[in-house]
């Protein structure tokens, strides 16, 4: 795959770098785990192969050999040789075909997954790009024009899907089967984000707790892969107690002293010392990852046990999709 135009900060990511947080090495990885994972399942990848993550504006890419791909996540108006293509399904692409992205129509992060995965060196157990420390992914940086990406070896499952689609004179063929794009279970409202009260929830004033759950918060442009900063009603603790730094995770909602919440994301630091008002339920991470600056959200409180059950249900749905595809290919 050859990058003709780079898009906006397009990076290679997988599920992330685990086991090294104790050394201060951040997890990294894709922002939208669900889109990345479904993408891998659709092209028959076994396990966690690296995909391309693009934000708002995707790249222009020429396929130098025949490939099996899928496009998942937000709708960044992808075309193949000028024809629009559908997301959430496997697509066979002939050598010489050009993938190009247009305007960001919905969501904000798109994923391009390839059968065999994008082949870059594994560093500390992951292919994810760590921009600040300049390692992982493609030379530790975002992609540039002229970069050439190698594709890994296809699994048996990928070969089956590939063979089913690869009979054509056209530049590409879309599969007639696909995955649902909505994995948010019953919570279909894109702007309602569910959370569990955080460790310091009860340190916040009752008024702040009420404001957090009953008023809207707007995502600011000062948001990136490290964290999403929101504007809204000022959130305050009853007492300003100095905290001892401890681990944070994806979806941790910190409130620094100026009173605006920040959701920590893929490139978060390993530890933090601000009070944690909330923790976003894992089942809604994908929704958070697809928010763009200017959008407004409401935070909805659920119990810890509800969050666990929702996550396990989502997991079962994904496993059903995997089984369904296996059956189809038998």
């Amino acid at each position, binding site marked *: 795959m050859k990058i003709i135009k780079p898009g906006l900060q397009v990076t290679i990511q997988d599920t992330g770098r685990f086991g090294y947080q104790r*050394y201060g090495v951040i997890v990294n990885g894709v922002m939208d785990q669900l889109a990345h994972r479904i993408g891998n399942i659709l092209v028959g990848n076994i396990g966690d192969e690296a995909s391309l993550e693009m934000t708002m504006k995707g790249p222009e890419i020429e396929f130098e050999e025949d490939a099996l791909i899928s496009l998942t996540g937000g709708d960044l108006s992808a075309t193949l040789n000028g024809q629009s293509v559908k997301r959430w399904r496997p697509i066979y692409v002939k050598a010489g075909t050009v993938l190009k992205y247009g305007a960001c129509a919905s969501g904000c992060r798109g994923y391009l997954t390839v059968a065999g995965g994008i082949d870059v060196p594994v560093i500390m157990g992951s292919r994810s790009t760590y921009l600040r420390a300049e390692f992982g992914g493609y030379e530790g940086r975002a992609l540039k024009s002229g970069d050439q990406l190698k594709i890994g070896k296809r699994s048996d499952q990928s070969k089956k899907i590939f063979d089913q689609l690869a009979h054509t004179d056209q530049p590409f063929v879309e599969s007639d089967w696909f995955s649902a794009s909505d994995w948010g279970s019953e919570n279909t409202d894109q702007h309602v984000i569910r959370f*569990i009260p955080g460790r310091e929830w009860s340190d916040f004033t009752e008024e702040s707790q009420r404001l957090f759950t009953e008023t809207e918060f707007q995502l600011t442009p000062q948001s990136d892969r490290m964290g999403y900063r929101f504007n809204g009603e000022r959130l305050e603790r009853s007492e300003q107690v100095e905290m*001892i730094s401890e681990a944070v995770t994806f979806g941790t909602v910190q409130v620094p002293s100026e009173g605006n919440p920040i959701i920590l994301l893929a490139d978060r630091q390993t530890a933090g010392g601000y009070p944690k008002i909330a923790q976003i339920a894992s089942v809604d991470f994908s929704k958070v990852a697809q928010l763009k600056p200017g959008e407004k959200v409401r935070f909805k409180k659920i119990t810890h046990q509800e969050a666990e059950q929702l996550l396990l249900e989502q997991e079962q749905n994904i496993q059903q999709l995997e089984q369904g595809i296996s059956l189809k290919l038998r």
Partner: protein
Amino acid sequence: MKYELSPLGDSAVIVQLGRVISEETHHAVRNVTDYLQDNPIDGMVDYVPAFSSVTIFYIPMEVIQGHSYSKIASPYEIVCEQLKERFDNITFTKRKESRTVEIPVCYEGEFGADLQIVADHNQISVEEVIDIHTSGEYLVYMLGFAPGFPYLGGMSEKIATPRKETPRTSIPAGSVGIAGSQTGIYPIETPGGWQLIGQTPSILFDIEKDPPTLLEPGDTIRFYSISLSEFKNMKEEQG
């Protein structure tokens, strides 16, 4: 040894081992991480030791595998049970073996750009700042902020200095700084607000090494002063 378990979302648990930053709590943290390293719980993917806590990350679906799955199965409850069983077996002791790592620091010229600020703030001379900084023993409580960045305890209050009002946009790797009553070393180039007093030729973070960091929680470190030419020689030896 007392501990408290509480969830960090639906996929992690925090083991709280104390309420203050102390060497005693630090030893408890190390006992827990050493034990987890050898006796991981089901579905564990990572653990993060901090000043007074250890956070354990797990995959809920893997936790419940092997347990009869039902609507009421809570991965968190299973994790807590497993942790309690393990903690019953840990004898909390002060660890005897501890590495001491010597860190050479050049305090000269640009490397010590803020030495005068530290000296003036504490009404002592630049030489005294260096003397005090190099005479202490520092304990690595945790790593964080950047890969290999040590949170150190043990700096003398005699050289404590507030952070810069405006952080520098770029600080070179190896820079040694002071912020409040903390001292530390920047392992990679990053923006930062610490008062810079020197630079070490030692490499604190190297992706080719396993572990990738020079320091680990529990290490004791000492700084010693080197000249600019010694600094250059050490740099050259690294290639």
